[in-house]
């Protein structure tokens, strides 16, 4: 079955490639006029795809793409003119130059917010434009023609037509392969998690800032490559690289459909050929052009692809398909595999000594907290609201760093390490309210939990479907994630459901599955029962006991004291930022101060 599927996908790929080559041949032998429309549109396609990679996939609305495009185009033209470098040598040079500029821009601007990133990149484009228009080196506003692309030898040209068309086609193909590969890779769910669920991604070991900068650099490199090809096609002047162009690209992506495989391509084609297809009075043409923007976005906010999707769904439901029975959560049936985690640190899984923390100097949130978590126990952490238990969990999981004290995790000092480094030390955590990726299936969400176990996932993602090792990894990820989901009681029928369509309990269980899928030795659960029904609470308790049987150390923060005292071996109690007591559950329960401060007796 799988073999047949793969065979079919290979056939599809081959057919698409042949069609692409045929289209290129057609274009390469077409007349100049048709060629110029096709090639410029193709450049827009590359730019729109590269922009969607940052805007759609990781949620960064770059308005710097025109500037990065200019680096590619002007870089090629000026270096070819002044240094007489070979145009093929210039390709890697301008790609790397644009990527480096993108990385720098991203590193400088990504520390605050998405809108800030949009503004900084917007100003970047303006500065590039102003520099191009005021410099004698770039011929100012007058502009300059690009280098000539070397022709095929005469007899080759007779068969294959104009060489530059093949160069443009190669640029388009490379971009499509890279962007579509990433979309099919195991890295894609991780990228969406970076966009929508940053704390979740960090807790799973993803260095989100690095990922954002890296993706923006890649996207910038693709824009630089588009510029390289563009330089052979048309005369260049600063006006083609202004902020309006940046906005145009974003328009193409949104009109076509953000974060879709074909949306950016359709958007670019629509905008690129519009003036050549709609041949009316130029002023009226502008009116129609603007009106199309409004109409598409108002009626189909998810773009042309959204519209197509809608139509397809309508047809399918008219054909009587698409209604599936609501699956139920099964009791835990599958015995989890034995924990693979080989751990150091002996009987002590985690210890915190003398922890002090404050957001504002002089106003301590936590004072002098000591806590020891024994290996293979369920350790409860309780305290009234504002007692500092969430802060303590954030210190343990690396979201915050303590002002004083030390934290030892499996024998290693970790208090100065960031959150994404925790999974490598065997710690995973969940969040109070599940923050996962709504447009992914629960299986895909769970695979994010395995991020730190897959080697060089980011680097391999750009050619993912072509790598046998990557296909193996994809299969392994799905199998492990599936097993983890089943181990928390979510049967196969659930796995393909999009997260946005599942009830809250299932979402919480998905989060739990993704936190245990990589076999951590220490698991931190932040209020795992919030919003669960009575039956679901029993279900979670059962899962925790099974995890303990496997030797996993579990730290649970919970309001429901009954749950804590019924299920935990040890309990730590905080109040007003101070430690009340910490020890075996029975002792803590008997502690007079606990009864007084927390249990209200």
């Amino acid at each position, binding site marked *: 079955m799988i073999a047949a599927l793969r065979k079919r996908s290979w056939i599809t790929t081959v057919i698409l490639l042949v069609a692409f080559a045929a*289209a290129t041949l057609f274009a390469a032998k*077409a*007349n*100049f*006029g*048709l*060629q*110029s*429309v*096709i090639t*410029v549109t193709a450049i827009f396609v590359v730019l729109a795809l590269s922009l969607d990679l940052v805007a759609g996939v990781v949620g960064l609305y770059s308005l710097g793409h025109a500037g990065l495009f200019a680096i590619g185009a002007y870089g090629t033209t000026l270096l070819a003119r002044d240094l007489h470098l070979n145009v093929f040598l210039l390709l890697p040079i301008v790609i790397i130059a644009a990527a480096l500029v993108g990385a720098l821009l991203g590193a400088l601007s990504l520390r605050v917010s998405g809108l800030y990133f949009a503004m900084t990149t917007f100003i970047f484009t303006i500065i590039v434009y102003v520099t191009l*228009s*005021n410099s004698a080196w770039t011929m*100012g*506003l*007058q*502009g*300059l*023609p690009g280098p*000539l692309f070397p022709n095929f030898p005469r007899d080759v040209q007779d068969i294959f037509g104009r060489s530059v068309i093949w160069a443009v086609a190669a640029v388009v193909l490379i971009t499509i392969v890279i962007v579509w590969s990433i979309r099919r890779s195991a890295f894609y769910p991780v990228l969406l998690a970076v966009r929508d669920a940053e704390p979740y991604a960090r807790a799973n070991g993803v260095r989100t800032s690095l990922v954002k900068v890296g993706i923006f650099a890649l996207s910038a490199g693709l824009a630089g490559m588009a510029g390289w090809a563009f330089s052979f*096609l*048309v*005369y*260049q*002047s600063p*006006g*083609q690289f202004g902020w309006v162009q940046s906005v145009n690209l974003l328009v193409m992506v949104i009109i076509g459909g953000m974060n879709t*495989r*074909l949306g950016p*391509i*359709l958007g670019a*084609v629509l905008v690129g*050929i519009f*003036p*050549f*297809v709609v*041949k009316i009075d*130029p*002023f009226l043409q*502008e009116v129609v052009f603007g009106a199309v923007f409004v109409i598409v976005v108002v009626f189909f906010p998810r773009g042309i*692809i959204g519209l*197509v*999707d809608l*139509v*397809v769904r309508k047809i*399918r439901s008219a054909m009587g398909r698409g209604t599936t029975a609501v699956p139920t959560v099964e009791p835990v049936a599958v015995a989890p595999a034995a924990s693979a985690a080989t751990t150091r640190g002996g009987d002590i899984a985690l210890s915190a000594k003398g922890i002090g923390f404050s957001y504002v100097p002089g106003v301590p949130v936590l004072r002098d907290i000591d806590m020891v978590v024994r290996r293979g126990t369920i350790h409860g952490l309780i305290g009234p609201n504002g007692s500092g238990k969430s802060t303590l969990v954030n210190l343990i999981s690396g979201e915050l760093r303590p002002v004083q004290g030390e934290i030892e995790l499996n024998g290693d000092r970790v208090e100065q390490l960031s959150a994404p480094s925790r999974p490598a030390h065997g710690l995973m955590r969940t969040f109070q309210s599940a923050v996962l990726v709504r447009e992914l299936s629960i299986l895909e969400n769970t695979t994010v939990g395995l991020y730190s176990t897959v080697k060089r996932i980011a680097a391999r993602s750009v050619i993912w479907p072509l790598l046998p090792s990557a296909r193996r990894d994809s299969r392994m990820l799905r199998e492990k994630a599936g097993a983890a989901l089943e181990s928390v009681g979510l049967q196969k029928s659930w796995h393909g459901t999009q997260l946005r369509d599942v009830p809250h309990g299932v979402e919480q269980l998905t989060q739990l599955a993704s936190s245990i899928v990589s076999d951590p030795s220490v698991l931190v659960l932040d209020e795992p029962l919030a919003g669960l029904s009575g039956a679901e609470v029993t279900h979670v308790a059962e899962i925790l006991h099974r995890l303990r049987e496997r030797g996993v150390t579990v730290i649970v923060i919970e309001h429901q004291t009954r749950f804590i005292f019924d299920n935990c071996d040890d309990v730590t109690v905080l109040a007003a930022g101070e430690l009340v007591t910490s020890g075996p559950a029975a002792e803590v329960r008997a502690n007079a101060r606990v009864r007084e401060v927390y249990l209200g007796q």
Partner: protein
Amino acid sequence: MKRIIPVVTAIAAVTALALAGCTGGGGGGTTDDTIVIGGIAGTTGAYGAVGIAVINGSQMAVDEINEAGGIDGRQIEFTWDDDAADATKSSQLFQQFVSDGAVAILGSPDTGPTTAALGDQMQIPVLGAVDDGGLTVYPNGPDEDPFAWTFSTSLNTFAWGGKLAEWSIDNCPNGLAMLHDPTTYGLGGLAGFEQVFKETGHDFVYVESITENWGSGATVNLDAEIQKIVDSGASCVDVWLTPGDEATFVQEIASLGITDLKVLGNDVTNADATFTDLAGPEGDGVISALLTSDVHPNDRLLEWQGQYRDKFDGLEPGPFAELSYDAVYILKQVIEDADGATDPESIRAGLNKLTDFEGLTGSLSFTEQVHTTINKEQLTMVAWNLANKKWEPIE
């Protein structure tokens, strides 16, 4: 998601086919019966009027020639489009017209550097209103070679700069200040001034370039510039900016109560009514140069202007219409002289030999070195007379 791929692929394919049908299916190109000429001009935007004049002037010549039997019996097919003053669009149109079989491209008054450079690259003659001549045709300055395939019948910034420079030497005792825009338009004017100043040992009292917005015609704030010009002590100032900004300039100096500064213009100042309309009363007395043929129109030009108004619903003719009309007739003569040969090389050779062609804009010639028809000897100094609503010759 997977299911929609075939659907979308189909849509994409249909779009591509439609595109191929739309652009690929054009006419038969230049044949034994027809000669295709391409026209590129910015007919939208704040200065779209210039592009419209270029297209109208060319169209008028084409219609006349076709009615009179064409060029050696071959009809002219004039195909044009708006370049929206955008280099990408201009490049695309250029390539499209060449593949439609155009023997020459007329224009563009808005993307001249693009059409001139592409003419050289694709070896196709570029003729007519190629920006404002000057640096667009001679990219490396007036003393260097012009673009080999570009032949401008357009207003020539070198000519206007030179003519105004000569006048300023005699009439501005404390020298001349200049404010120009940084495109080939302003830099061409500057080069025209510099050439005359260098020959006669003069120099500017003050010169500054200032970026403008041709797309919107929006005004920059000129107060700081005006202050610097007044401080320089110059008795005249040449304002080589958009007509809108030149109008703002004369109004601002009036607002500031400055009366002892003579304002000079450029080739566009009186190419249409934009400047005089906008400047209002403060435009009175502004000095510029005008084609002698426009100052003292002969009967043929007067008659032509009447026909132009009739044909285009009373639209006022101007030099850009006249010189574009001339360009088409020049092309006709060159093709006829070459016994109907329309290959690019023959046309270029013919244009290089054009001598004393009697056009609306004067007696026009090209040589290997001279690729602009209008030089400063064809110009007359004029001043705007508000009372008569006329540009009147001055000494």
